[in-house]
């Protein structure tokens, strides 16, 4: 009996904040939870958990400062780059205050973004997934600088891991904005394409044309906006995924400044088990501006002309 009372009390305590929260949720004029605004994807948790934490999902508050500081140092230290690598000649993210941990971010006591499986680490690629990765690498090997089509999708201004579903924070411009109108939610990563997501009850069609960002439909489950996405372009290959990847994203307002972003990916051709994670999106006091990627892609021209110059110098050597 005593135990029973304890359970009920515990349940009430767990539910109480949620109820209060639900009442406080801002609403759109047509009654949906209001998620509109610009948000930072920056967070202190790395994508995968350091093995030393094993199944420990959360840090104690007193462990956090050191964790965040250490992560900033290892991730974006100014020294220790390997000569001749891209990192060696690239400006330091920290130098321009662009590194993940220097952006606006909510307190996140998690030890990793990945929460499923329990060890916080992305499952190994299946043999088919590994073979696909290797074949793709082999196709480019020795030809990486031949022409624009051999460069990465990000360098080509096609898609970014911070903008295609599932959305993950990256080095810089890791921000997104959300607009809502009756029947639609628009999610746009700063560097990427607006995803115009219908919420009118339509389902994902059985047959989908391949799209770089997949095709998304959304629905409201109480306070949570749920997005289902499938139908990826085979070359989207998010973390070596196949075109059959199915992504579920869940956006829930936690407080005035924070939306919890949770995602699950299912792609048996690539990972034997579904996996996913959680991290906070933090409201930005400001606007996102136009990111004209291809219009200003001097990087691509410089990469290719650098390679041609290098080839000429090599050929000229006796």
């Amino acid at each position: 009996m005593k135990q029973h009372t304890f359970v009920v009390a515990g349940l009430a305590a767990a539910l109480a904040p949620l109820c209060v929260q639900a009442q406080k949720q801002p609403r759109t004029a047509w009654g949906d939870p209001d998620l509109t605004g610009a948000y930072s994807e920056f967070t202190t948790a790395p994508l995968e958990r350091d093995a030393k934490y094993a199944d420990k999902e959360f840090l104690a508050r007193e462990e956090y400062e050191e964790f965040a500081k250490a992560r900033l140092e290892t991730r974006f230290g100014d020294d220790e780059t390997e000569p001749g690598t891209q990192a060696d000649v690239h400006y330091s993210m920290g130098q321009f205050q662009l590194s993940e941990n220097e952006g606006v971010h909510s307190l996140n006591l998690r030890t990793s973004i990945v929460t499923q499986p329990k060890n916080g680490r992305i499952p190994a690629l299946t043999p088919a997934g590994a073979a696909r990765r290797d074949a793709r690498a082999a196709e480019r090997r020795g030809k990486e600088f031949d022409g624009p089509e051999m460069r990465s999708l990000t360098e080509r201004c096609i898609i970014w891991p911070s903008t295609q579903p599932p959305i993950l924070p990256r080095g810089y411009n890791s921000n997104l904005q959300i607009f809502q109108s009756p029947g639609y939610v628009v999610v746009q990563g700063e560097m990427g394409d607006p995803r115009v997501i219908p919420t009118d009850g339509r389902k994902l069609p059985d047959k989908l044309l391949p799209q770089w960002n997949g095709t998304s439909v959304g629905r409201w489950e109480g306070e949570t906006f749920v997005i289902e996405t499938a139908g990826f372009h085979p070359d989207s290959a998010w973390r070596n995924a196949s075109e059959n990847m199915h992504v579920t994203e869940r956006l829930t307002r936690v407080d005035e400044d924070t939306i919890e972003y949770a995602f699950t990916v299912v792609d048996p051709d690539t990972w034997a088990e579904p996996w996913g994670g959680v991290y906070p999106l933090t409201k930005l006091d400001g606007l996102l501006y136009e990111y004209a990627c291809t219009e200003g892609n001097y990087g691509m021209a410089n990469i290719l002309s650098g390679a041609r110059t290098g080839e000429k110098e090599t050929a000229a050597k006796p």
Partner: protein
Amino acid sequence: MNRILTAAFALLATAAAHSQVLTEFPRAPNGRPDLSGVWQALNTAHWNVEPHVSGYPVLLELGAQLAVPPGAGVVEGGAIPYLPEARAERDRRFENRLNDDPEGKCYMGGVPRSTYMPYPFQILQSERDVVIYYQFATAFRRIFVDGKEEAPLDTWMGWSNGRWDGNTFVVEVTGLNGLAWLDRAGNYASSSARITERYTPLGPNHLQYEATIDDATVFSRPWTIRMPLYRVVDQDFRILEFKCEPYAEEKIYGHLRKPGTGPSAGASSQ
């Protein structure tokens, strides 16, 4: 029989539920017209906003399928009131259009060109914001409704402030970088341009679109284009991705590739 009728009725009901053909122009809760929907122009202004007869394709080997179709033009009064030196610049741009038209490089269309490029665009309207997503180059505009914001810097799609004038949504566009053209014929405005767009319901499934271009560095007076926009009524229509970057790479970077290599279709075609 009954079952067939029921099935037919269900089918009709489904079609009605998904159909976008409307009998009156929708209204937002605040009483303003609701411009939300997918729209597209149906004219040849993307070739040339001025009146034009048919013409040869930019490369003769492209043949009739990419020849220029004729059009009566969308400019009020017919001709654009260019200053003499600006008209000469337009003519230069026409001569060099194969290389210089930003459309060929998959660059954003700017305003107003994005409106009448031959691709659909979607307006999403709430009481606070109006946003427009254009299929070409995945261009995106946010229009501040009753906003006071000023353009902090020049961009391809400019900085848009909107307000309602009765049934007309009026958008003042400044902060354009002047790099976008007005069409494939080399018509242009500069980064000094101030564009006033007017979106007015013309019928349940039509909008009247007007854009007045005020740019004293290029034109002798402000001038106006005008055209209807058509609601895309296809069932469950979605703007599909037109990621045009891969198709422009050879044009932009071809001279920098390793001699003897070529784009591999598998890496870039859909």
